[in-house]
C-alpha cells in the first residue's frame, strides 16, 4: 500500500508544541505589564487634537488592539495561556488516572458490575457542563479564595465528574482484551489479576490511552468554553454589579472569550475575535492531533466497502 503523509498528525503535533511553548513562556514575553491600561488621552495628529480612547484597534503598539478598558489583548492572552494549557492537561491526566483505575478494575472482573454500568449509562447523557456549572457557581463568582485554590478545585471537580466516560472506554477495551486467547493462556498458566493487567492489558491499551488523553483535552477545552459562555471562568469570575459585567481573573482563553462575547454585536469585533482565534487554535490543534493519532493507529483495521 502506498504510504500517505499523515498531515493531521504532523500539523497537530506542531501546533500543540507551539501552544505548550506559549503556555510556558507566555507571561514572560508579554509586551506589557498585566495591569497596564491605556487611558483616555489627547494626542496631536497633524496639527489637530484628537481624543484617543480605548478600545484601540490593532496597531503597532498593540498587536491585537486593546479591550474596552484599555488592556492590551496580547498581554492578556499571553498571561492566560498557562492556565488554558496546563489546567486542561492536568484535568485530562487526572481523568485518565481515575478512569484507568476504575476501568481496569471493573473490566477484569468476572461478572459485569451492574451498578457501575448504570452510573456510566446515566452519566453519558448528562452534559457535564451542567453539574460543573451548578457546583462551582456558588464558589467561583466573586471568589473569597485565592486563585490557586479555585483552579485546584476546578481541576478536581471537572476531573471527577468527567471520569466515568474515560473509565467507560477503558473498561470496554479491557473487556475485549480479557476475552483474547493469550489472556486465557496466561490465566491457565496461573497468572494473577495484576499480572494480567500490567503484562497483557496495559501494553495493549497504550495507543488507546494516548488518544483518550488528547480527546479528553478537546472535551475539557470545549467544557471550559461552554462554562465561559455562562460567565463561569477557570480560576474565578470577577463580577461587577453596576453595570453587571463578568471578568476572568486568570485571563484564561475560554474565560476571555466568554467575557468578551458581548462585543460580537459591537463595532470593536477584534475584542471578540482575538480570544476566539486563540481558543480555536488551542482546541483545533488538539483535535488535529487526536485525528492524526487515530488515523495512524487505525490504518491497520482499514476496510473498503463493496458498494
Amino acid at each position, binding site marked *: 500500500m502506498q504510504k500517505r503523509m499523515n498531515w493531521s498528525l504532523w500539523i497537530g503535533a506542531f501546533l500543540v508544541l507551539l501552544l505548550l511553548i506559549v503556555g510556558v513562556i507566555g507571561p514572560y514575553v508579554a509586551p506589557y505589564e498585566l495591569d497596564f491600561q491605556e487611558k483616555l488621552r489627547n494626542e496631536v495628529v497633524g496639527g489637530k487634537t484628537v481624543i484617543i480612547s480605548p478600545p484601540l484597534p490593532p496597531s503597532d503598539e498593540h498587536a491585537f488592539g486593546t479591550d474596552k478598558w484599555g488592556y492590551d489583548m496580547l498581554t492578556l492572552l499571553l498571561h492566560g495561556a498557562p492556565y488554558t494549557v496546563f489546567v486542561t492537561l492536568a484535568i485530562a491526566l487526572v481523568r485518565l488516572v481515575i478512569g484507568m483505575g476504575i476501568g481496569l478494575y471493573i473490566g477484569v472482573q468476572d461478572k459485569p458490575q451492574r451498578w457501575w454500568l448504570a452510573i456510566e449509562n446515566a452519566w453519558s447523557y448528562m452534559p457535564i457542563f451542567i453539574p460543573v456549572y*451548578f*457546583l462551582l*457557581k456558588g464558589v467561583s463568582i466573586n471568589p*473569597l479564595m485565592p486563585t490557586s485554590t479555585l483552579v485546584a478545585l476546578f481541576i478536581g471537580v471537572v476531573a471527577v465528574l468527567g471520569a466515568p466516560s474515560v473509565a467507560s472506554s477503558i473498561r470496554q477495551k479491557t473487556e475485549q482484551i480479557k476475552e483474547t486467547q493469550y489472556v486465557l493462556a496466561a490465566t491457565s498458566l496461573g497468572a494473577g489479576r495484576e499480572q494480567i493487567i500490567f503484562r497483557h492489558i496495559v501494553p495493549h491499551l497504550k495507543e488507546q490511552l494516548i488518544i483518550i488523553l488528547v480527546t479528553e483535552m478537546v472535551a475539557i477545552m470545549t467544557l471550559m468554553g461552554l462554562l465561559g459562555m455562562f460567565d463561569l471562568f477557570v480560576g474565578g469570575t470577577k463580577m461587577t454589579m453596576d453595570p453587571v459585567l463578568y471578568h476572568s481573573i486568570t485571563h484564561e482563553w475560554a474565560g476571555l472569550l466568554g467575557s468578551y462575547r458581548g462585543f460580537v454585536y459591537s463595532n470593536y469585533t477584534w475584542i471578540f475575535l482575538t480570544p476566539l482565534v486563540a481558543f480555536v487554535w488551542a*482546541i483545533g490543534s488538539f483535535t488535529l492531533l487526536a485525528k492524526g493519532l487515530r488515523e495512524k493507529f487505525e490504518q491497520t483495521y482499514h476496510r473498503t466497502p463493496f458498494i
Partner: protein
Amino acid sequence: MSYVKQLLGMFFLVIAVCGGPFMLYTVKEEIVFAPENVVVHTVYLIQQIAGGSLGTYYLGENERSIAEDIVPFAISTFELLFSSVLIAVVASLVFGLFLQRFRIVRHLQKGMNLFATIPDFILILVSILAAIGFYKMTNIRIITLSPTSDSANSWFPMTLLAIGPTIFLMKVISLKYTQIGGEDYIKTALAKGMGVWHVLIHHVYKNIKPFLLADLKKTIAITVANLFIVEYLLNVVGLTRFIFSKSGAYQFNAAVMGLLGIIFLSILVYLLIRVILYLFERAVVYK
C-alpha cells in the same frame, strides 16, 4: 415499575445537580461542603408542588409564577429541539447512508468533518458574526435577537442547533456504513444482481438501525447541551430562562422545573423520532 424508579432517580439527580450552589459555597476563604442544605430546599419545593403551585421566579425585577410560564416556554423549546433532532436524523440518513456512494456526498462529508473540528458553540458564535456581516452587506436580516420583534424567526436557531447533532450522527452512520459495506453478505447480495437501492434499504439500513437507535439518545443529549447555548445566546424564550438567569441570584425552584422540563421534552422527542422511523420503515422498507 422500573420506569417509575427511573423517573424518581431522574428527579433526585436533577435535585442533586440544581442543589450545587447550596452544597458548595465559601465562608471566610474556606470551602464549605454541606449537602444537607439541599434537603431543606427540596422539602420546600415538594411542599409547594403538593400545594398545587410550582412556585415563583424572578424575571428581571418581576416575580412571575412558574406554572404560568412553563407551558409556552416548553412549547418553544420543544419546537426547537424536535426540529433540530429531526433535521439531524434525516440529513444523516440521507447523506450518510443513501447517498453516501456518490463521490460528491463523500466530499461534502469530508468538509463537514473539517467543520466538526471546531466545537459547536464556536460555530454558533461564528454564525452570529456571519449573520451580522451578511446583514451589513446585503441588508437581509437572518438573525433577530429581540424575542418580541415581529420579524423573530425560528429557522436560524433551529439550523444552528441542528449543526452539532448532524455532524455527530452523520459521522456515526457513515462509519457504520463503511463497516457494513465491507461485509460478506453485501458482496453476496451484489453478486446475486440485486439493485443498489434494494441492498441499501434491506441490508445496510436494517443493520445500521440498531446503531442509529443507540446513538439517537446520545444525539439528543448533544442537542440538549447545545440547546442551552443557542437559547442563551440568541435570546430564544425557552426553558433555559428558568435555568440560567442572565443576572440576579440563583433560583432553585425555577432551575429544577426547567431541567425536569427539558428531560421530559427529550424523552418526548426520542419517542416521536422512533415513531417517525417506524412509519418510514412501514412505508419504505416493509411495504
